[in-house]
């Protein structure tokens, strides 16, 4: 639940048409799928960061269904998963290692499951390639698989298909969809243009 939230670096005029920012109350439910629609610079990533707890520069308040005082690392391990727009992979680790480092923390998937997912998105041959040598689209897929290697109640996706062709997008979307179903989790995805890959329950516009 968000109450009158606005990033400190954005003015009231900038967020005027927003359906989220500065609204008296916005309820996001853990079993629903939301699409955040906005132009560049209208605060999509900021909103996800605020929800994920890694952006504290905002006014207003965010209430979670779990205790607000619960340790941020346990929330990130069990409740919220996030595919960052800049992916945040370790460039000096291989694709597989990037996923394993997260899975080692949560123990959510088996080695076979991880390799299976890599195979589905067509990256099995690249699993031992350094993340730094992967293309942007390949890295995007690795980052999504990493985000799926943990239990979560809500998945945050920041333009996850921005560098993928239609075919690869569909494969990846299927993978995400299956995990959402399996975990009965909700989803918040940002996008520049309307999309319905995930049968969204609600579309929230941050700009006109």
């Amino acid at each position, binding site marked *: 639940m968000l109450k009158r939230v606005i990033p400190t670096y954005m003015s009231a005029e900038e967020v005027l048409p927003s359906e989220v920012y500065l609204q008296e109350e916005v309820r996001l439910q853990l079993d629903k799928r939301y699409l955040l629609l906005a132009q560049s610079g209208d605060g999509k990533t900021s909103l996800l960061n605020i929800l*994920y707890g*890694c952006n504290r520069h905002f006014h207003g308040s965010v209430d979670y269904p779990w205790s607000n005082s619960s*340790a941020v*690392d*346990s929330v*990130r*391990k069990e409740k919220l998963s*996030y595919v*960052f727009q800049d992916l*945040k*992979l*370790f460039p000096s680790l291989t694709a597989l290692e990037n996923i394993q*480092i*997260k899975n080692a*923390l*949560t123990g959510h998937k088996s080695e076979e499951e991880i390799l299976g997912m890599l195979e589905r998105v067509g990256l099995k041959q690249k699993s031992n390639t350094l993340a730094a040598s992967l293309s942007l689209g390949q890295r995007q897929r690795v980052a999504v698989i*990493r985000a799926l290697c*943990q239990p979560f109640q809500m998945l945050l996706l920041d333009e996850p298909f921005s560098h993928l062709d239609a075919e690869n997008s569909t494969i990846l979307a299927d993978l995400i969809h299956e995990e959402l179903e399996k975990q009965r989790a909700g989803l918040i995805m940002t996008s520049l243009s309307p999309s319905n890959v995930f049968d969204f329950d609600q579309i929230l516009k941050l700009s006109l």
Partner: protein
Amino acid sequence: MLSLTLGSIILLITLQLFVDINSLLEKETDVFAQDCVVINKNISVLQSYDKEGIYFSEKEIDELESQSFIKSVSPFNVATFEVEAQIKGAAGMSMLATELFFESIPDEYLDVPLDHWVWDEQSNVIPIVIPENYINLYNFGFAESQNLPVISQKTIEQVAFDIRIKGQGGRGSFRGNIVGFSNKINSILVPEEFLDWANQQFGKGPNQKANRLLVEFKDPSDEAILQYFNTQDYSINENELEASKLKFIFKTALSFSFLIALVIVILSITSVLLSFSLVIQRNVEQISTLFLIGFSLATIARYYRLVLGISTMLALTVAYLITYFIHELIASNLSNYFAWKSEENYLLIGAIALFGVVFTLGQWKLVRAVRGVVQA
């Protein structure tokens, strides 16, 4: 890390030397620390006619006692009767006879072993301590000129001689035994118990007037001592005070190097902390990503803590080993000069304490730095 090792070496070795020298100075009192000195009044021509002037008055003793640097003042107890010593040869013939005097001081100021320093009314034997000078005077002066054999301290201790006492209260005869030789007190000493008893028995009763005082200092390296005695008309062996200043010089020198070592250690701890900050700054990206994908601060810090622990441990182990060998070397050198052995070894405790300090500080800095990164 090198600077930490170096600083620790100097700090530890100074600490240990401090402890060693202190114990050395305490044990070898007759070599260094003259905690007690004997003072008397200067004797002028006038006093040759009027002897009263050589005695210390109550007031003077009180004044001495009131000085801040003086721990205690005890007057010499003097025999108020005549004493004659004889060594008898075969058939009871007197071989050597000399007139003597006795004095006594409280037992705790004696610098000879007190094993045989006992007297009781039943036993007829009086233990006596004479100045080491006497035997030297005899051996190197008198015996040479008279063509007499030299005698050792052990030989003298074997010889028993007759003591005759004559005073107002009558006469007495005893056996005398030399039980030790004093470096410190230039007098013929008998146990205080005996002298009190004998003064009562044979002399003019307890001696009231003191002409020599044994002064015990709290800290012989106190500057005020020399200043005070320079202003008084008391005779004091300044050499004794100079010797006691050795302790002060030792302490000053060691304190100084301790201080320098401390500065080095503090600097090196700072540089360790700084280098850790640098390592963390270099890994800002990784640390913040780890935190973002759900790693806790403690987990992230654990790796750096391990590095910190191992490197500090390494530096201090090397420092400990080096100081251990240096100390062994110094100790064996010192024991060549003095009958002294290093008993307390603070090196290990010191090294562990240093490790504790460095590690705690490092960890504190580490957690702060990591937290700083993820909260940025």
